[in-house]
């Protein structure tokens, strides 16, 4: 059973719809005990870093997530909260993946909204059967800076920045796979098949 963490702000329904389509069992919850027993965890992303960390604290989930050994997928904001810190609301994040989250600063529009290419830089189960330079759907104003060894895919929006990352059992995408059509469903399905 996959636990989708309900932190009162994410686009949880979209993720749930996608898992329905894939025929995967899931539960939407903020209950510590249920999440502890889940065999996978998804943290869907929308909202703000400060608020998300606050909600996780409130639900007593911070240590649980940090110490989990089951496959974990962070989406969008769910990628950013894995970092050490975020400039959004000056937030101290989970510190699972060393790195900082900064706001885009350029003449390009902010937020970045729309379909952008992901260049795959490393092989991973998560991106199995997904071609290089595939378009995924993005909506965000902040981006992660981290070490190359954690990066599976990168994207260009004025700067080149990581958009698929992985460390041990932690995976995350800056884009929304649940909103990226068939190829997004493929990525989610790859995650669901991880053990």
């Amino acid at each position, binding site marked *: 059973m996959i636990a989708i963490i309900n932190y009162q702000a994410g686009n949880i329904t979209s993720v749930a719809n996608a898992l329905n389509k894939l025929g995967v069992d899931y539960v939407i919850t903020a209950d510590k005990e249920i999440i502890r027993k889940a065999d996978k965890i998804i943290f869907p992303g929308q909202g703000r870093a400060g608020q998300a960390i606050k909600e996780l604290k409130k639900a007593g989930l911070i240590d649980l997530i940090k110490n989990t050994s089951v496959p974990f997928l962070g989406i969008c904001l769910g990628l950013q909260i894995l970092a050490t810190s975020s400039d959004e609301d000056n937030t101290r994040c989970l510190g699972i993946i060393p790195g900082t989250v900064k706001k885009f600063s350029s003449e390009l529009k902010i937020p970045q909204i729309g*379909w952008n290419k992901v260049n795959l830089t490393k092989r991973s189960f998560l991106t199995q059967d997904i071609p290089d330079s595939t378009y995924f759907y993005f909506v965000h104003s902040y981006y992660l800076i981290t070490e190359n060894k954690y990066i599976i895919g990168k994207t260009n929006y004025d700067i080149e920045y990581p958009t698929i990352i992985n460390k041990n059992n932690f995976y995350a995408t800056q884009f929304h796979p649940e909103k990226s059509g068939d190829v997004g469903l493929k990525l989610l399905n790859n995650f669901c098949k991880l053990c």
Partner: protein
Amino acid sequence: MLVIPAIDILNGKCVRLTQGNFSLAKKYSNNPVQMAKRFTQAGATRIHIVDLDGAKSGKPINFTLIKKTRQSTPAILEIGGGIRNLKTAKTYLDLGIDKIIIGTSVIKNLKLIKNLIDKYGSQRIIIGLDLNKDKIVINGWKKTSQQNYLSLAKKLKKIGTREIICTDISRDGMLSNPNLEPIKKLQALGFWVIISGGIANINTIKKLQTQKFYGAILGKALYENKINFKQAIKLTKTTNNLTKRIIPCLDVKNNQVVKGIKFKKLTFAGDPAELGKKYAEAGADELVFLDITATLEKRKTLCSMVQKIANNIFIPFTVGGGIKSVKDISAVLKAGADKIAINTAGVLNPKLIKQASKKFGSQCIVVAIDTKKVNNDYFVYINSGKTKTKLKVLDWVRQVEKLGAGEILLTAIDRDGTKSGFDNNLLRQICSTVNIPIIASGGAGKLADFKNAIIKGGADAVLAASIFHYNKKTINTLKKYLKKNNINVRI
């Protein structure tokens, strides 16, 4: 980094001065319009134009040429020289000139700058600071003031200035090295600073690029072939693979997709869930679902229908119509929408936009604006285009950006359903005014209309209904056409 080619016009010709000295003007071309076209073809996305006659005389002299240039290039145009009152500024901005540069008035009339920024926003008003050592030079560099640039900059910051073009006149046209000290100091104050004067070769550009400066204006070095413009563009170009979006719109009334002309004469076009799925499979980048009767009949958006659509659609999905409260938004998002569109309720209660973007994030909040031109100004209309408000559209877009809107869905009512093309001049003005994505709506008929909304209007996304519903054009045909015209789309 932006590299911006400069076109200085004197007596209708394209010239370069040396250290601002008019008697040392050297002519490079008889045709500034042609020059702008050439720069555009070489990859310029922004062009700097100075009406030197205007700068000298305090009023625009080469206006007709500048108007022709506007019609000849989609590049962002910034114009300076002789803009010293609101009327001249308005003439240029209404014409679709993206940004105007104010120089002399920084000394003589700071209030004008404040008024301009209040009226048009900081994105369209650039301050030109021409420096002689640390003093400001005005009147086409004919007069050095006693004003220190840094103390002036602090005042400019207070009135909302964002962009500054900084020219060191001792370096201008000298093909020496630019003086970076004032640039760094201005940047430290938080301005976006464009360097002008003294950029002599490609190595200087490389150096500026690595130091992450915002922009640089190239003049004499281009005309004297010291810098190859294409090379400079290639060197500084930022890669951006974000595609332009094609968004079919489903206007829904009584659970059916309908389409009207100028918001009236509604005809049936299909079932929302079926059409939505069809478009998603056909390559739509997003869907917009507007319950067009919701506001009028004071109904809440039909969450069950949203749910039905969302179950089968794995691309982003915006829902609008009758959304009046944070509670409504919560319900619609829970039903499966990714974003919500606020129109009438946002005008009547702007706080809603703020509350909603704070709670759900800006990315979630699309502000839909319906507008119509009345006596030279575009006004905001509410209640499905039935009620005119006193709000001018250029004021409203800036306000909603400040309130936290993530996107603007702009419909020109007079074009809606007419298939006569988008209102590209309006789009252009809005895109230069705010920095959030703009979705163009109203008027799509031919493939070229989409291209023009993106290239001439500057739209980030185009929304259409009739053209898709009645199988006039498929999404794929449209995307292939746009790609052929060098517009980045997802195919």
